[in-house]
C-alpha cells in the first residue's frame, strides 16, 4: 500500500499510460489494423499538439493550486488578433507578438484579480472565458479575416518525419513539453510551483514568492493556449471565432486523467500529455470502430470521473498509512 502511494505521487501518469496501451490495442484490433496505420496516426499526431499545449499550461497552473477556464477562449482570441493585424499588413512576426501580448495581458489579469481580491481562480477565469470569447467575436466583426498567402505557416503545419507522419507543430510541442517538464522536475522554480500548490502556508513561511509563482503560471497557461490556437488556425488556414469551445474542460480532463490533483501540488507534464493523448485516441478510435461518435463525450466524462475517484481513493489509502505510522 505504501508503495502504491509513492508510485502514485511520483508517477501519477502511470495509470494513464497503462490505459492508453489497452485502448490502443483494443482500437487496433477492432478497426482491423486501421488505427495504427500511418494515415490515421498522422491525424491523431497532427491534432495532439493543439490540445496538448493547452493541457500542459493548465496542468502546471493546477499544480500550483489554481485553475484556468479561459484557455479555450484565449485559444480563439490570440489567432484572431494576429490574423486581423496580418490582414492590415503589419507583418507576420509583429502580428504574432501582438497576439501573445494579448494572451500575456489576460493571464496576468487572471492572476492579479484572483490574488488581489482573494477569489477562486475558477470564478475569475470563468468570467474571462466569456470576456475573451466575446472579444474574439467582436474583433472578427462577423467576417473572419483572410490569412495572407505569404505567411510562413509551414513553420507549424508542414508534414515532416518518416512518411510525413508528423507536422512541424509536433516539434514545437515536444520542445515545449520537455522544457515544461524540466522546469517542474529539475529546477528550483519547479520546487516552488509544487510547494505553492502543495501547501501554500508552508511555502510562504519558507520565503517562496507564492504570488509571483502563481502569476507566472497564469501567464504560462494563457501563452500556451494562445500558441495552440495559432497552430490550429494556421493548420485550418482560417481563423474562426468559435474554435476552442469546450477546450478548457478537455484540458482539465486531460490533466486530471494524467494524475494531476485538483487540490494542487501533484501532477506532471507527461501526465497531461498522456491525458490529452487518451482523449484524442478515444475520439479517433470511436470513429474508426464505427461507434456512434456521440459517445465521445460520454467516454471522456466517465474517464475523468474514474480518474478522480481513483486518485482520491489512493489519497485516502495514503492517509490511513500515515495514521498507522504515527
Amino acid at each position: 500500500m505504501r508503495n502504491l502511494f509513492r508510485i502514485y505521487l511520483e508517477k501519477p501518469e502511470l495509470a494513464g499510460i497503462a490505459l492508453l496501451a489497452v485502448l490502443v490495442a483494443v482500437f487496433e484490433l477492432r478497426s482491423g489494423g486501421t488505427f495504427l496505420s500511418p494515415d490515421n496516426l498522422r491525424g491523431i499526431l497532427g491534432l495532439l499538439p493543439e490540445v496538448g499545449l493547452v493541457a500542459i499550461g493548465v496542468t502546471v497552473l493546477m499544480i500550483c493550486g489554481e485553475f484556468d477556464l479561459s484557455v479555450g477562449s484565449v485559444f480563439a482570441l490570440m489567432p484572431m488578433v494576429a490574423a486581423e493585424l496580418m490582414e492590415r499588413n503589419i507583418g507576420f512576426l509583429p502580428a504574432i507578438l501582438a497576439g501573445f501580448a494579448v494572451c500575456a495581458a489576460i493571464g496576468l489579469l487572471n492572476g492579479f484579480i484572483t490574488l488581489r481580491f482573494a477569489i477562486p481562480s475558477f470564478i475569475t477565469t470563468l468570467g474571462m472565458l466569456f470576456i475573451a470569447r466575446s472579444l474574439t467575436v467582436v474583433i472578427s466583426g462577423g467576417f473572419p479575416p483572410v490569412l495572407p498567402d505569404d505567411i510562413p505557416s509551414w513553420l507549424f503545419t508542414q508534414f515532416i518525419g518518416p512518411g510525413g507522419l508528423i507536422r512541424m507543430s509536433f516539434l514545437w510541442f515536444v520542445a515545449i513539453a520537455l522544457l515544461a517538464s524540466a522546469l517542474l522536475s529539475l529546477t528550483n522554480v519547479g520546487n516552488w510551483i509544487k510547494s505553492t500548490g502543495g501547501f501554500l502556508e508552508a511555502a510562504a513561511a519558507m520565503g517562496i514568492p507564492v504570488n509571483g509563482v502563481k502569476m507566472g503560471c497564469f501567464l504560462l497557461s494563457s501563452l500556451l493556449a494562445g500558441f495552440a490556437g495559432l497552430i490550429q488556425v494556421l493548420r485550418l488556414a482560417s481563423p474562426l471565432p468559435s474554435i476552442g469551445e469546450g477546450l478548457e474542460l478537455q484540458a482539465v480532463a486531460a490533466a486530471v486523467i494524467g494524475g494531476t490533483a485538483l487540490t494542487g501540488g501533484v501532477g506532471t507534464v507527461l501526465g497531461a500529455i498522456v491525458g490529452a493523448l487518451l482523449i484524442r485516441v478515444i475520439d479517433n478510435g470511436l470513429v474508426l470502430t464505427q461507434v456512434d461518435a456521440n459517445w465521445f463525450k460520454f467516454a471522456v466524462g466517465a474517464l475523468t470521473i474514474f480518474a478522480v475517484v481513483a486518485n482520491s481513493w489512493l489519497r485516502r489509502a495514503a492517509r490511513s498509512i500515515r495514521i498507522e505510522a504515527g
Partner: protein
Amino acid sequence: MSAPIVECRGVHKWYAGVHALKDVNLSIAPGEVVGLVGDNGAGKSTLIKILSGVHRQDAGELLIEGKPAEMRSPKDAMRLGIETIYQSNSMVPTMSIARNLFLGREPLRIGIFGVGLLDKERMRRESVHAIADVDLHLRSSEALVGELSGGQRQGVAIARAMHFKSKLLVLDEPTNHLSVKETNKVLGFIRGLKPQGVTGIFISHNIHHVFQCCDRVIAMARGEIVFDRAVDATSIDEIQEML
C-alpha cells in the same frame, strides 16, 4: 559577555484595537533554550511572529546580535539566522524530504538571478546528513513528507533549521496534535539544540514540557511578560499558581 542573540526593547503590537503586546522587553543570550508559556491569547505567537518577520512591531526596537534589525519577511529573518517551526506543519506533504529541506534555499548546479538547475545529488547527500544529525532515522531522503508521522515531520523541520546553521530556532507549539510518544520525540530534538550551540525559544502551554527541555522560563499574560527566571530557580507549582 557576548551580545544577546535577540533583544526586544519596548515592543508593542496592536491588531485593530486588540493590544496584543504591551511594552515587551526581552533579552536572550546565545546558547540559551527558553520556554515561553502562557494562556491562549497571551501574545506568545504574536511575539514570535515579530521575531520571525511575519509581523512588524508597531512600536519598540528589535536587535539581533546587538544590531537593530529590520525584518520585512520571513526570508529576512532566515537570512539573519532565525528559523521558525509552527504548530501547523511547515512541510509540504506532497514533496520529498530532500526537496522540503531545501525549499526556498535550493543548491543550484547552474543558475542566473537565483533561478536554475537543482543540484539533486547535493540535496540528497546533505539531507541524509541533516536528518542523521538530529538522530532521526529514516529510510531515505526521497520519502515523501506526507508519509511521515507528525513527530518525524517536526524532526525534519528541526533538521532543516540545524542544517542552515540557524542561530535562533523558534518552535511555536510544535507538539500540538501529537501523541505522547511523538511529543517525547520532539522534546528530545529540543534537548539536542543545546549541545549543538543553537539558541531556542520553545512555546508551549504545557509547563511540564518546558521544564523537561529548557534553561529558562518566561511567562506571558495579556500581552505582557509577567515572569522570567531560570528553570533551576523556580518550580512548576510556582508558575502554575501565577498563571
